């Protein structure tokens, strides 16, 4: 009897704590989504409406240039940056996909070399990769800005792709070599027994088996480039290369309150990482845990 009562008390206590955490962790996200569904008038209501009374997708439509031409002209006048969001989405997507692909192409051969080639004294090179992760980006951004300026690459997506490869490839190598080392080498042995060459073994045994690791690396690289801000704000000037975080942050400079548009841009910026995190949670958590445990 007593133990049953303490059990109920215990469950109540745990649920209260869970509710508090839930409120703290998810109210900000909820409020962003709710605000993005509000009109300007409703956004400025005091006290605020916790649940939008007349939710509308007009803010989203405006970003893509759809809807009442009169309202679009009004939005153009009120916040011209709204119309930079769509080109920025394209830029962010291009940069993110290129960086993810480059990570797979550069990191998987290197990781394979570390895990399978049995080279003594390979540890120092791995430590160099690890060490380059420790460099603060602010230190790289200044000389890289001058470098990119000399090559005329400022305000091109290419400059961002190069910068993000530097930020992500060392981590990808580290993560993938740890992943390859967990894969049983016996399968490759039996492929070799069946007469497979090293290339065939890599192509038909290692890569298919490593798919979870490769997926994780690609997703983390994409998410890192999609969210990065420092290099983006320094390297980009116009819609030719501005990425979503830069455009979203550009609303801050304006004097008027435009949080309806800002939160809409925020939802669009946060949506791909949200979806990737939810769909690939298992891979990401596994990868982060491996990355954290090993480095």
């Amino acid at each position: 009897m007593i133990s049953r009562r303490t059990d109920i008390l215990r469950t109540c206590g745990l649920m209260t704590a869970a509710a508090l955490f839930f409120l703290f962790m998810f109210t900000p996200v909820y409020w962003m989504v709710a605000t993005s569904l509000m009109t300007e008038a409703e956004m400025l209501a005091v006290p605020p409406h916790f649940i939008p009374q007349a939710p509308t997708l007009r803010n989203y439509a405006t970003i893509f240039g759809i809807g009442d031409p009169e309202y679009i002209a009004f939005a153009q006048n009120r916040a011209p940056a709204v119309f930079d969001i769509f080109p920025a989405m394209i830029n962010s997507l291009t940069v993110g996909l290129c960086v993810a692909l480059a990570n797979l192409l550069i990191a998987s051969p290197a990781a394979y070399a570390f895990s399978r080639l049995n080279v003594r004294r390979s540890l120092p090179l791995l430590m160099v990769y690890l060490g380059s992760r420790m460099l603060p980006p602010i230190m790289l951004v200044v000389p890289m800005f001058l470098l990119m300026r000399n090559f005329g690459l400022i305000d091109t997506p290419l400059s961002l792709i190069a910068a993000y490869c530097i930020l992500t490839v060392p981590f990808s190598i580290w993560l993938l070599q740890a992943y390859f080392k967990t894969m049983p080498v016996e399968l490759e042995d039996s492929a070799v027994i069946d007469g497979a060459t090293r290339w065939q073994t890599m192509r038909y045994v290692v890569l298919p088996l490593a798919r979870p690791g490769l997926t994780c690396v690609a997703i983390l690289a994409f998410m890192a480039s999609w969210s990065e801000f420092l290099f983006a704000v320094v390297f980009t000037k116009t819609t030719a290369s501005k990425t979503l975080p830069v455009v979203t942050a550009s609303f801050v400079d304006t004097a008027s309150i435009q949080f309806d548009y800002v939160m809409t841009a925020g939802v669009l910026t946060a949506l791909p990482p949200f979806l990737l995190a939810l769909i690939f949670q298992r891979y990401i958590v596994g990868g982060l845990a491996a990355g954290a445990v090993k480095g």
Partner: protein
Amino acid sequence: MAVKGEHPFPALARSTNAQPGKMWSLARARSGPGRWVAPREPQPFLFFALNTPAILLLLAFVLYPIIYSFLLSLHQYNLWQPARFRFIGLDNYISILGSEQFWRAAQTTALFSLGSITMTIVLGTLLALLLNEVFPGRALLRAIILIPWAVPPVVNGLIWQWLLDGRYGLINAVLVGAGVLDDYRSWLTDVNTAMPALIVAQAWNHIPFVSLVVLAALQTIPDELYEAARMDGANVFQRFAAITLPWLSHSLLLVLITQTMVALRTFDIIYVLTGGGPGDSTTVLAWLTYVTTFNFADFGRGNAYAYLIALTTFALSIIYIRLLWKRGELAR
């Protein structure tokens, strides 16, 4: 085509009784995890061939920039006054280390880092402990916990700016509604509340990561340990102190390292939330470097700042790595 050095009939190579140490010795005998079976000789050439793209990337975009950056830090170099470019040795460093601005920024960085790391790790660990218990709703909370982590830092900053807004913000409305505050406050332009606001926003973004890493470690604790402790009459706090905390120390150390790196390089949410103000109350070193370089075009001094940040990071990394080394974690 067989790769050079590979036995044409590896199965045969396995079955023949070659002497150990020779090329085709018994595969099982020496193949540990991570060992290639057929040619067991190290392949340095292939190793470097496969690492070439990564090494080139590092040489071009890491090694070259850090050398270039160091050389620039020894110069007077303002982009607006290119004619006055000249070598001044360590003068940039001397002037920085003698300036009050630098030391204030260093203090602010320390305050921000300590605050955000402590809050992230304490709340992240509490959340992990909670998620390790059984209660209705746990599955839901676990499934969506990554969401705040997935929010890009710029968006994180903007969300908190809107929540903390002085005229229409939700937090003001809730606090005034609950009677905690008499009147709306503008949190981000008040010297006393700007830094705490920044710390809360930063912690909010990083708590999920910490709690997932800690949770992964919690799940490996064998139940027998707790049962034995219960037999010995240990209460919940004693069990936490004697079993859970020591078991977690490794994960907590790793989380501490990653969070320190994150805190020292924080730039995005400061750009969005406070812009280093009010006054210079939230001007951390990364922000000071950015402003010096890109707002005042003082590339010589900016590079010197960047080098000082890098040295601090480097020193901290060495301390951490030594700690890990002592624990035998890196020996593997």
